[in-house]
């Protein structure tokens, strides 16, 4: 019934709590672009200054005299210095294709020789940011990032004139994906929870009106769900708009056929394959919409059963932020069921690009698994909602 939908939509958008949530999210997004832009050059791609310093250091090492312990590293250091020179030259001359090729070789070299606990005397290492961020497995994390970046550069190496912004993953479409991976989707889900959290309990303040409306509870909650989804569609549009304003003038739109990497595992064999950005964004959007639906229905169910906002809020927070309570890197190796826990599927971008597969050391956490896991919970919620709202004296307000 359009009248009820319009009315509820209006109520949702004029609720000061909801306006505060959206306002704060907007401010946070703008601040992020100002202070911590999500589209900075990946740390695996060293700047010209760092490359130059490192290249000069390597050349100095090659040119000095060596004892038996260090002489063994001279050929590889010479090779590394050569790769760094190629990168610097290509960058200076603006030859993007050559730069991409040199970068792929550079990344490959690091993968072969970078420091690891078994080869303690290796003079090569991954970007130092992986180490001072206090990670449990910085080499593994850096190796993953290395492989993933390499895979996304390979298609660019085949292009005649690859674009610098695309190489540095700074275009509009790439920023959307990186932002999603970096926390935008979590923020969107948080907004969903906060919008849905008092959909029914707020009607307690208008009890005599809410109780006398000629609407079935099922109809009422479905309409309310649509109003929240409508608002979220607006929020997503706003997000895209702000990103477009902050990115397109400087780095362009980019292409939806640009490759992102998808990490997968088949038994003990791990591999990275390219995935078109357009497909990745669509899959991510699909999973996000499913999660939004899940959180809205969960909160509605909690409000119907318990007539308060807190239980829904706590359950939703546990789902959204509960993964650290049980996550240990590589856990699926020993406890495979964790690959099917719902809190592990809260970042759709990490599911789509295979980061969750890497973290859990499994090949099970695919977008399809996400649909199945999230979908199963949604089906369960829908059944419960249907039963609760079709009881004889069911009402949305106590």
């Amino acid at each position, binding site marked *: *019934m*359009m*009248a*009820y939908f319009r*009315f509820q939509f*209006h*109520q949702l958008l*004029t609720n000061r709590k909801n306006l505060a949530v959206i306002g704060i999210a907007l401010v946070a997004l703008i601040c992020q672009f100002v202070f911590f832009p999500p589209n900075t050059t990946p740390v695996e791609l060293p700047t010209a200054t760092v490359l130059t310093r490192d290249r000069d250091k390597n050349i100095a090492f090659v040119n000095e005299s060596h004892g038996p312990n260090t002489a063994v590293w001279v050929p590889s250091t010479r090779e590394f210095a050569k790769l760094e020179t190629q990168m610097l030259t290509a960058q200076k001359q603006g030859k993007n294709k050559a730069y991409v090729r040199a970068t792929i070789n550079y990344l490959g070299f690091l993968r072969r020789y970078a420091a690891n606990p078994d080869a303690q005397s290796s003079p090569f290492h991954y970007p130092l940011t992986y180490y001072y961020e206090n990670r449990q497995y910085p080499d593994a994390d850096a190796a993953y990032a290395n492989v993933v970046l390499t895979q996304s550069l390979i298609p660019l190496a085949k292009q005649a004139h690859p674009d610098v912004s695309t190489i540095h993953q700074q275009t509009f479409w790439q920023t959307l994906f990186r932002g999603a991976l970096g926390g935008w989707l979590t923020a969107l889900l948080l907004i969903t929870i906060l919008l849905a959290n008092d959909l029914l309990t707020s009607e307690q*303040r*208008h*009890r*005599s*009106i*809410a*109780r*006398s*409306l*000629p*609407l*079935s509870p099922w109809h009422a909650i479905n309409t309310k769900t649509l109003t929240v989804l409508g608002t979220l569609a607006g929020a997503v549009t706003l997000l895209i708009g702000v990103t477009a304003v902050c990115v397109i003038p400087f780095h362009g739109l980019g292409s939806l056929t640009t490759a992102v990497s998808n990490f997968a595992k088949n038994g003990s064999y791990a591999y990275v394959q390219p995935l078109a950005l357009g497909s990745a964004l669509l899959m991510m959007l699909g999973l996000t919409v499913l999660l939004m639906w899940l959180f809205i229905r969960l909160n509605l169910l909690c409000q119907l059963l318990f007539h308060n906002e807190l239980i829904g809020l706590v359950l939703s927070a546990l789902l959204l932020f509960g993964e650290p309570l049980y996550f240990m890197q590589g856990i699926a190796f020993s406890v495979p069921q964790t690959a099917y826990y719902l809190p592990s599927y809260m970042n759709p971008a990490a599911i789509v690009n295979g980061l969750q597969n890497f973290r859990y050391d499994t090949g099970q956490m695919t977008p399809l698994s996400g649909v199945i896991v999230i979908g199963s919970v949604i089906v369960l919620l829908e059944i419960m909602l249907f039963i609760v709202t*079709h*009881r*004889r*004296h*069911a009402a949305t307000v106590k």
Partner: protein
Amino acid sequence: MELQLQNLALSFKNKPNVIHDISLTMNGGSIVGIVAPNGTGKTTLLRLILNDLKPQAGKVLVDGKSYGSQKQSLALHRQMCLFPVQDDLYPDLSGKSHLEYYAKLWHNRSKSVKQIINVLDMRDYINQPVRTYSMGMKQRLCFGMVMAANTPIMLLDEFMNGLDTINVARMSRILRGLRAEGKLIITVSHLLNNLQGYADLIYFMRDGKIIKTIDQHEQQPLYIQVAEENASRLPRMPWEHYPNGMLVLPIQKLPGEHFNQLLLGLAAHHIPFKLGPLDLDTYFNEFYETDQ
């Protein structure tokens, strides 16, 4: 349109027999008043009719149909509208938004919102947010909302609260008009004299039961009422003491010539008296004052 209450009963945990075996039949085209002191079950009865509360016994039938499955309940629900509580209005919305909301939800196409605004004289403030309204303005708005729903059954719970005499008269006039349209209006009101002016049937409730029914269309027994302070000057007759300080004598107990003599005697001795049916205030005092 016929509304039947069959042997309704409801008790609460700390209050047994709030509604105790009430059976009533009410038809469209009438105004029914329910009278009782505060906290004795009037609003509970309205909520039972609306299916907001579930009776422990008995049922509510509208044109022979009872509340059953959710679909059936919804169908009945569309036939009635409850007077909303003032505090439940949406403070940031305008009165007009409230009226349009109710009109659309109940698919009212016959009565326009503009008409309702004019009839209730709300033109000056109807577009302003409800939080700026006084109590009387909110009451009129709530009444307007029930009119906007335009349902065959209207449940009006203390809808005259906070209204001045002009608006009381206005509302009473509108009620008569709604009755003429064939609506069944069930009202709870403490303005008993006003209620007497428009209600067709008045039910008095006590201990969860209907203790007295007054059908205003029937001939009501006549009484002579005299103030108690004149007791010493009155002839010896079976006067009844009423809690409101009146002495009451039913005329049917008097033979014809005694009645004439009494009237002449009262007039000759300048004793003020009233001749007519008992008013609702007197009944109220009789039924409930003695309890206290």
